[in-house]
């Protein structure tokens, strides 16, 4: 890439003969460069497939059963009960009597935190995007965009700190609840983390709408709000939806901040003030110490497969919905 740029610069400066020889060099280099770019493109697919195969392969023994030799010729087989796995809230992988591998509470934990964070982040993010793209002056816009990008650059562990050190006492003091590490805390932190993504993607979508749309809307007698609501939003639907779904993806995949802010407690929540535990946090907290080859170890990989499934469903819906919207707008 760099080489090409250099070549490019030289060709404009050099005289005709130089130019010709560079032209030849460029022609010869072209297949190489095309090949490199080709590999770059395909490597993305290769990585996704490789990761999926690895995670799936590591999770497989949990389903098919793991045999350990306890005495000569005596083999004990441990196997995951899939019904228990999907329907039981009991996650007690290291029990000394009978381990239980139910992830229902973890799924509910992940979904409740993500849902609550999206509830906060979408209005906040869309509002900010509308302000930045439609109302802010050039200078304000540039400053805001830089600040919002800065917000996205804050490491998640720092967000976790904020949740523990600032939000935790704040929530206990304001609500009188015994402990402030809960869905509310994690949801707010996660919302603040996904706002930058929602803002930057939806702002791009809004700015991509041609000015003629805005002018036409205003010329028809709509005020600014009506123009945004009835013209811009429908026109930028695809991008806005992509923004929201990216936000959801962030919420489901986030690990460190939710590990710190949810209270990390296996629990079926009944209110916003209940501590919960998420799928990602469980993997992060337990994979490091699970004995390799153990049922616990392979089950954690199976949770990884479940997360994969979530991500796949979200992306697929995003694609289908966006495609549907596009087809409609083409008619």
């Amino acid at each position, binding site marked *: 890439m*760099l080489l090409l*740029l250099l070549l490019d610069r030289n060709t404009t400066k050099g005289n005709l003969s130089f130019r010709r020889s560079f032209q030849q060099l460029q022609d010869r280099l072209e297949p190489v460069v095309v090949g490199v770019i080709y590999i770059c493109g395909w490597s993305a697919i290769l990585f996704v497939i490789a990761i999926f195969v690895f995670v799936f392969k590591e999770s497989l023994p949990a389903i098919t059963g793991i045999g*350990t*030799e*306890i005495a000569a010729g005596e083999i004990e087989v441990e196997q995951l009960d899939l019904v228990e796995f999907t329907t039981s*809230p*009991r*996650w*007690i*992988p*290291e*029990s*000394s*009597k009978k381990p*239980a591998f139910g992830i229902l*509470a973890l799924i509910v934990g992940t979904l409740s935190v993500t849902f609550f964070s999206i509830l906060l982040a979408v209005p906040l993010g869309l509002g900010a995007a509308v302000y930045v793209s439609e109302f802010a002056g050039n200078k304000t816009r540039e400053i805001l965009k830089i600040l919002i990008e800065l917000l996205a650059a804050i490491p998640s562990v720092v967000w976790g700190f904020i949740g523990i050190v600032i939000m*935790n*006492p704040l929530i*206990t003091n304001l609500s*009188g*609840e*015994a*402990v402030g*590490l809960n869905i509310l805390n994690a949801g707010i932190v996660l919302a603040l983390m996904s706002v930058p993504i929602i803002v930057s993607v939806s702002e791009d979508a809004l700015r991509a709408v041609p000015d003629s749309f805005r002018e036409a809307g205003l010329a028809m007698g709509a005020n600014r709000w009506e123009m945004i609501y009835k013209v811009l939003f429908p026109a930028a639907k695809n991008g806005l939806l992509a923004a929201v779904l990216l936000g959801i993806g962030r919420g489901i995949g986030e690990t460190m901040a939710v590990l710190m802010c949810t*209270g*990390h*407690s*296996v*629990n079926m929540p009944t209110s916003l003030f209940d*501590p919960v*535990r998420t799928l990602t946090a469980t993997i992060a*907290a*337990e994979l*490091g*110490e*699970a*004995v*390799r080859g153990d049922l616990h170890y392979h089950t954690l990989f199976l949770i990884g497969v479940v997360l994969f499934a979530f991500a796949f469903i979200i992306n697929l819906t995003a694609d289908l919905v966006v495609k549907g919207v596009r087809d409609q707008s083409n008619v």
Partner: protein
Amino acid sequence: MAKRNILIACLSSFFLLTILGCGSRQGSGEDGSSNTIRVEGSDTMVNLAQAWAEKYQAETAEITIEISGGGSGVGISSLTQGLADMANASRKMRAKEIRRAKNEYNLDPQEFTVGKDALAIYVHKDNPLEEITIAQLTTIYGEGGTANTWAELGITVTGTENQKIVRISRQNNSGTYAYFRQHVLDDNDFKLGTIDLSGSADVVSMIEKTRGAIGYSGMGYATDGVKMVKVKLDNDSPSVAPNAANVINGTYPIARPLLIYTPQEPTGAVKDYLDWILGQTGQTIIEEMGYVPVK
């Protein structure tokens, strides 16, 4: 354009340096493996291990001791795979773990008791609770246990509206977790809904900030913001404070040994270090860190 080139140069040199850095570190580890002792494991013992290592390294310049925590389970797991020279543990190795070390990695783990600890029950400093029985702990923590509010223990904790008991526990690879389950809950499982923290110190600092909380941790982690509750074996027994004297005379009901495992019969640098830990200086440090020496 120039700006971009500088940026690229910076980035690539950064990467190069990182790669070189990693390489050289690995190299030194391989060369001087006999002079480096890798210690891993129990979070209860991590401060203690650090104190030992600092003193020992000051005395014996050519030895480097690398310490990491993570929990007894992590240490034992590394030990059985031959990735650590010593594993600190606040619980005993399980039969399954010993079998794995023997069968798969051809190791023969050795156990050494290097100190003792009282597993202290902590509450917030303003909590009026003074003593607790093992049976009460079981109703709070055990699966099927009925106690969910402080009122059920007959006390009122100021500053929490719903009087809910916030149960603080440890992550499930922790030796402290395993010890508590075995000796307090009689090997039954924990009630779901505990807040699982990953460090001994985290438990205490969480209780400091949470008025309605109860938790368990090593007695070396006590601070001014928390209170250690006296423990009674049952209603008729005397209540015993977690301190060194009561651990030594055996009256504290949930005292536990602090263990170090080695993958084989220790030799060379590891043996010297272990002898030193069990000797005068090492045992004095144990006392300074708030635990109980074995000798």
